[in-house]
């Protein structure tokens, strides 16, 4: 159907074939096949986007219904796919970066006993994510939404022999389910009111609605809960750090570049609804800004290379939601794109480090690796500069656009938080960079054996590095590309990219330089260990993520356990009652008797009784009605 179905079905086909025949395939084939399938999907995405670009700005949308899904007994819901400029951006990032990460995985997962299973899951994730962004209505979106959660669960728990991986997978799944419920209830409310879940129908209805009604606040809030869980916004953020138990390419693809930005996609997609829910809209920005600075503070004292990156992802997601919250939708999408570049780069480069050190992730056993891993060092540096917001790297442009929009729209508080967080980001990222690649090796044995990754891993990293350096140039084009989407319905008047005051830029970059300098001073000049400061009170709190895990356990997990116990007892009671009913019937019923004693006379009597009752009913009823 119009080139969309192929994009979605190809990765599914890859997943199914690998799942079914992975055992029969030669060792390296599943990875190659999976990468090829995603590459084909990438090419199809480009073709679809090109065709989309040829359409006139007012009708820039390709849509098609595969068939009816829920029909006949009420409003119909179809298998409907839609491609518009917004989903096109996600499409290219998912398939493009997805392909690079597939290629990288060929090197990273080589020799793992579950290689076929890994690629099957990874393809399945691509399928689910594409379904999510290409969905033409909220119900199909929810299917993709739930399936990416499932794929994430599989991949976090990929090394299922590790207890920690299994626990992390469970945690992620449970927290994501909270979000799924939010989306489900939100879309059910919309369906009850408008009898449709398709985007155009809903958005047309929104266009003429009056903002501020409680109904809109509630639906927007419920859908935001979904986005919150998927994009790991405070307070549903803890699963993301634990999700690092999965293989590193998975962290790069799912838990940095694509899946966790699904919330940003959903909120951007629903901008006409956010117009109607000003309170929720404002809250999205506030929580986003808080998540940004909160996660940055946690990253300060982390000891695990991937956990630092995980918290930086949280922080950057906070930036994106800040952008959504202040109505700077294009800037949020722009930051999603550049973040996908530099964060995928950082994770893959970190993966190369971990690969080189035989699986070691602890910062206190690294150091001085620049000599051993020059390519990785340079690419990592590119990513670090980009995320820290140094001009002219990509992160600088998107972050400036976000902060500028926050300032222009009068959200000075959020702007200030964003600026401070930028400085903090530079500090913890350069701490990570210096501790990994410079100073003296803290573990000689590991250092001696370190070696640069094979080409199949370094080439994707290098491509991502180029994108992370130059990706900022996409901004103007992206702005023009997305303009028709935001012009279609009211609610995105300030969506376009706009620069803030020049002194704001100077301040942000200045703080970033200070952060970098502080990291240099502390960890290189003074040569402090990575663990320095973790024993002080604030350090302990920050390192343990402000104790929120314990808080959640106390507030949510324990009561749920009590509730579950209560239900189990109730169930026992119900079972007991059912047994009781069955026994009661045994004791009482006549026609339970086995065949030989069943009496035809009695059966005929029952028929006669019924007959007379019905006859009497008919005669009386006929009289009454007549």
């Amino acid at each position, binding site marked *: 159907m119009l080139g969309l179905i192929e994009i979605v079905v190809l990765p599914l086909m890859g997943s199914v074939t690998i799942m079914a025949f992975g055992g029969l395939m030669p060792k390296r084939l599943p990875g190659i096949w999976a990468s090829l399938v995603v590459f084909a999907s990438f090419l199809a995405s480009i073709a679809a986007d090109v065709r989309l670009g040829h359409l006139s700005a007012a009708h820039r949308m390709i849509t098609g219904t595969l068939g009816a899904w829920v029909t006949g007994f009420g409003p119909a819901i179809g298998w409907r796919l839609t491609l518009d400029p917004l989903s096109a951006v996600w499409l290219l990032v998912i398939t493009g970066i997805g392909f690079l990460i597939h290629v990288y995985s060929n090197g990273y997962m080589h020799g793992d006993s579950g290689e076929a299973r890994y690629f099957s899951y990874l393809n399945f994730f691509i399928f689910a994510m594409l379904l999510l962004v290409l969905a033409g209505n909220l119900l199909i979106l929810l299917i993709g939404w739930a399936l990416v959660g499932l794929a994430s669960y599989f991949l976090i728990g990929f090394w299922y022999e590790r207890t920690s991986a299994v626990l992390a997978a469970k945690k992620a799944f449970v927290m994501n389910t909270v979000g799924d419920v939010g989306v489900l209830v939100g879309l059910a409310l919309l369906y009850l009111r408008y009898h449709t879940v398709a985007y155009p129908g809903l958005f047309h209805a929104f266009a003429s609605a009056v903002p501020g009604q409680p109904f809109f606040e509630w639906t927007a809030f419920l859908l935001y809960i979904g986005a919150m869980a998927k994009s790991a916004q405070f307070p549903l953020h803890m699963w993301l750090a634990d999700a690092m138990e999965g293989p590193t390419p998975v962290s790069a693809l799912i838990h940095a570049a694509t899946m966790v930005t699904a919330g940003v996609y959903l909120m951007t997609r629903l901008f006409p609804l956010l117009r109607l829910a000003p309170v929720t809209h404002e809250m999205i920005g506030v929580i986003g800004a808080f998540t940004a600075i909160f996660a940055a503070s946690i990253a300060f004292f982390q000891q695990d290379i991937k956990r630092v990156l995980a918290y930086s992802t949280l922080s950057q997601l906070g930036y994106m939601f800040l952008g959504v919250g202040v109505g700077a939708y294009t800037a949020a999408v722009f930051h999603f794109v550049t973040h996908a570049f530099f964060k995928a780069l950082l994770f893959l480069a970190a993966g190369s480090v971990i690969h080189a050190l035989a699986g070691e992730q602890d910062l206190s056993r690294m150091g001085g690796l620049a000599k051993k891993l020059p390519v990785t060092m340079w690419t990592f540096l590119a990513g670090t500069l980009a995320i820290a917001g140094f001009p002219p790297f990509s992160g600088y442009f998107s972050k400036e656009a976000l902060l500028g929009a926050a300032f222009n729209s009068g959200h000075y508080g959020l702007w200030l938080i964003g600026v401070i967080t930028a400085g903090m980001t530079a500090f913890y990222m350069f701490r990570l960079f210096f501790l990994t690649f410079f100073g003296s090796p803290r573990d000689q044995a590991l250092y001696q054996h370190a070696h640069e990754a094979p080409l199949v891993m370094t080439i994707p990293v290098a491509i991502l590095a180029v994108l992370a350096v130059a990706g900022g140039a996409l901004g103007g084009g992206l702005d023009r590309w997305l303009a028709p989407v935001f012009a279609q319905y009211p609610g995105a008047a300030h969506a376009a990219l706009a620069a803030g005051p020049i002194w704001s830029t100077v301040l942000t970059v200045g703080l970033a330089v200070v952060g970098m300098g502080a990291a240099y001073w502390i960890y290189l000049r003074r040569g402090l260990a990575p663990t320095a400061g973790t024993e002080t009170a604030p350090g302990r709190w920050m390192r343990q993520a402000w104790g929120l895990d314990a808080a959640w356990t106390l507030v949510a997990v324990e009561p749920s356990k009590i509730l579950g116990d209560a239900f189990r007892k109730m169930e026992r009671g119900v079972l007991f009652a059912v047994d009781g009913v*069955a026994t009661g019937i045994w004791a009482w019923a006549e*026609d339970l008797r086995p065949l*030989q004693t069943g009496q035809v006379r009695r059966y005929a009597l029952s028929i006669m009784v019924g*007959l007379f009752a019905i006859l009497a009913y008919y*005669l009386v009823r006929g009289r009454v009605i007549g």
Partner: protein
Amino acid sequence: MNPLLWPEYSVLLGVLACLAAVMALGTKRSAEYPVSIVALVASAVFTVHGWSGHQSPVALYGQTVIIDNFSVAVDGLVILAAAASILLGWNERRSGTDFPALVLLAALGMMVLGAANSFLVLFLGIELLSLPLYILAASPGTSASGEAGLKYLLLGAFSSGILLFGLALLYGGSGTMIFTAIGPAHTIAPLVAAGSALTLVGLIFKLGVVPFHMWVPDVYEGSSMPVAHFMAFGTKVGAAAILMRFLFFGFYLSPGVWGPLIGYLGVLTMIVGNLMALPQNDLKRLLAYSGIGNAGYLLIGLASHNVTGAEAMLFYLLPYGFAVMGAFAVVTMVAGERSSISVKDLAGLSSRSPALSAFFVVAMLSLAGIPLTGGFVGKFYLLQAALFANQPGLAVGLVLATLVGMGAYLRPLLASFGHPAQSLEPIVWPWGGALVLAVATLGTIGLGVYPAPIVQIVSHSANFFWLH
């Protein structure tokens, strides 16, 4: 020879061919099974062709028979039921050589019922359906088959007498044999009221509605598995079809008279049926009571008296049929040489044959109405119909009965996952049973996940315009 009747003709020709095969080849070589399947396949082809061919109803033989999308849909269901029965009893020496011919003949009766528009055709169809089933119930398959057949014959004759009396009164009161010709003035005349009551009793006796249900478990218990399956699926289809023809075509002007009655009977039937299914130990008796409970669900569609109800009722027959096919196929395979099995015999099925146990789970969950199975979707549509008709009582009854039914259906499941197998004899997979099982399972899950195509068919078949 009317081209629209080819589905019926091919079944009739199949009967004759089966008889000829038995006469020509004797009882040594059984060609009648393939012959009957060929006839059913041909009939199915004509049914599909007829479905795509005509959209508007055609009245034949002086309006006594109506061929419309509804009758074609009923044909399809009957063919499915008959084919599944014959496959389940494939080359079964216990069923005897006349088994395929009799099944085809009964199927023909059911197809006639689906197209009936006159009292005479109604009676013809009912008798055509019943007489072969009397013989099938009495044919030596189980230790009690003779008793079951005799019981069925006695009570069947009793109800046929009531039915015939009712039809005579109806004719006397309304002056016409044609359903659609019964005028508005007639529908509340006392003679017609009495006639309707008696006719209704005759029809719901076949459906197995409480309090006319008592024969059902005994007859199922005494019949062989394929025959019991055919009664559980095929007879229900035929009886439901003729009830819908009779009430929706003949008495569509007076739903206020019969609607509440059908509603009361429906709720009574589904609650009693599911309650009585709870303590059953013999699986055939359990499935018989399940069939009674499901007959109650079907009545909801009638009592709602709206388009949704008609569609939901027709729809429900398919997931119910798939579940019955699956359950009987599993029970047949587990029983092997035995004629009946109890819940205890299922113990350890999951370790004895995981695949069979998985199929059994699907069938049972569908009967219980668990989401992602066709049974859930069917019950959901019935519930919706009751709510659209502003009859919350029906909806509450449906939910309560389903809750009780859950206990009944989960008990055998529990047993199948329970203690290690008591009987360790290997399970034989006859290809016919395996095919039935595969179709039933695929259908059950397919309907649960993607019911749209069937809903499409149903909404064209039961979309009687006067219900709008």
